[in-house]
């Protein structure tokens, strides 16, 4: 295998550049630029109303940008020759006709995209929906609807997957299935862009994150980079009935101590063994001693603080 992978990177790379959407009263997306690489799961994060859905819809030519461009493998979505063979998308506010069966829903899409008819059955099997193939869409549970959406996205066996809040409505089993499914797709070298506000799930799923707030980019990088970029690193949480004594004992060192407002102390600048040793030396009784690493949720909340909400 010397050839065949001529340009695996550019072929499936998503590039958003200066993307802007001005609605009548709201600047939904403001000069947004980021890239999404193949072979990785990229989490697209932001508070409600941050412009995630608008951005994804501009990327897919469903919403016309006021300015800027969004390309997939170097091309705008409408310029792709066979869009469903390049890009699969699962979007919110996307559904099927209530009176149409799941398999017929997929057959309609296959017909429009010029895909072979049996792709509908294959895609249903891929998401485990074969038993419900001939049931009407209105009889589907929320989780089944999400799976049907993913089946529709996989019809053309695309290199790029774009999913808007795919975990919505899934039960824990469904979420675990989705995680494995998306990680598997990325491992095959596909580009996977997933928007979500379930941050703990994202920490398990994503390799990279793009965080936006109020329509603007806040941070982009690998999950570790983004978490590491926070000023507040590792902290030690201590619970003790002798808070003043411990604070005094740590006063000589590099530690900074503050109350967390819930009866515990948060100590930065030293590690847990140091705190434990200082407590032992000073004869301070400890009820809790834990190392707190910043997680995606904390980083996210600090990065987007004050930018969330209705605009």
């Amino acid at each position, binding site marked *: 295998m010397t050839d065949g992978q001529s340009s695996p990177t550019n072929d499936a790379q998503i590039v958003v550049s200066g993307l802007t959407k001005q609605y009548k009263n709201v600047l939904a997306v403001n000069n947004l630029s980021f890239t999404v690489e193949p072979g990785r799961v990229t989490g697209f994060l932001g508070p409600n109303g941050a412009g995630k859905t608008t951005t994804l819809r501009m990327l897919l030519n469903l919403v016309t940008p006021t300015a800027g461009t969004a390309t997939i493998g170097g091309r705008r979505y409408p310029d792709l020759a066979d*869009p469903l063979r390049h890009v699969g*998308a699962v979007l919110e*506010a996307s559904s099927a*006709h209530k009176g149409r069966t799941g398999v*017929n829903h997929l057959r309609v*899409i296959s017909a429009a995209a010029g895909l072979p008819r049996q792709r509908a059955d294959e895609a249903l099997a891929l998401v485990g929906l074969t038993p419900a193939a001939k049931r009407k869409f209105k009889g589907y549970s929320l989780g089944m609807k999400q799976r049907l959406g993913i089946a529709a996205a996989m019809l053309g066996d695309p290199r790029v997957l774009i999913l808007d809040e795919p975990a919505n409505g899934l039960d824990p089993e469904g979420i675990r299935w989705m995680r494995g499914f998306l990680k598997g797709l990325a491992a095959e070298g596909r580009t996977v862009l997933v928007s979500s506000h379930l941050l703990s799930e994202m920490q398990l799923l994503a390799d990279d994150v793009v965080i936006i707030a109020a329509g603007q980019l806040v941070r982009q990088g690998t999950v570790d980079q983004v978490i590491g970029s926070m000023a507040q690193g590792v902290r030690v949480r201590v619970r003790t009935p002798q808070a003043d004594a411990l604070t005094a004992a740590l006063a000589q060192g590099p530690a900074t101590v503050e109350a967390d407002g819930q009866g515990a102390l948060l100590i930065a600048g030293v590690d847990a063994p140091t705190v434990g040793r200082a407590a032992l030396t000073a004869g301070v009784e400890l009820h809790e001693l834990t190392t707190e690493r910043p997680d995606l949720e904390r980083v996210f909340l600090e990065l987007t603080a004050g930018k969330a909400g209705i605009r």
Partner: protein
Amino acid sequence: MSNLVRAELLKIRTTSTWWWLAIGAFLSIALAFAFNAWLASETLSGGGEEFGYTGDAASAPAQAANLYTSGQYLGLMFVMLIGILMVTNEFFHQTATTTFLATPRRTSVIVSKLIAASLLGFAFWLVTTVIDLAAGAVFLSLNDYGTQLGEWEVHRALLLNLMAYAIWTVLGVGIGTLITNQLGAVITASVLYLIGTQVVGLLFLLLSNLLDNMAVMKWQVVWPAAASQIMITPGENEMLPAWWVGALVLVGYAVVSGVAGILITRRRDIS
């Protein structure tokens, strides 16, 4: 493009809506045929003046033409509704996203809907006409009026009927793109079709009385349903413009609403 037309026809086939509309069309054929058959037998046995049928309109070919196009009035509304639903369903059931993801070239999507709609209009016309021809020929023969199937007036009525079916389905697609709210589009179009024609006729009658000018009546052709009626009405009438004026107006509406639908759909944000 053929893929897209196939997809549009598949969309229609895989839901039950068209069945209901087909049943509605069939019932309206049955009712209209019974009424028209009674009318024909009364008229052809010399009682036409009671219904305002004199001269050419009371002739056997004219009555046969009327009989062979039974069910047209409601049938046209049903195909218009199918055309409307072909578009509004996409928004009502939120399948527009999926549709435009599969085909980002939106003009192609609307054009394929227009083609599929015309094919469907043709199918409705074909089935309606076959039923009418079979039942009508039997009825006329049994009553010794002859089938009249060789008459140009009958051919003309059937062909114009075909044109009406195709145009009204296309018009429905146009209306659907202009009013994407399903209930809004269906109710507006049905009311305008069923009641609007009478109201418009009345308004023009009042206007012509007011202006003391009967020629004003001819202008009711600007109303699509009136244009449709004028197009299929045989013979000369000083109150009405020629049939081809009605045809042109109707085609005009279909073209304008189709083009407007394409332009609007191209610009619309799907969210």
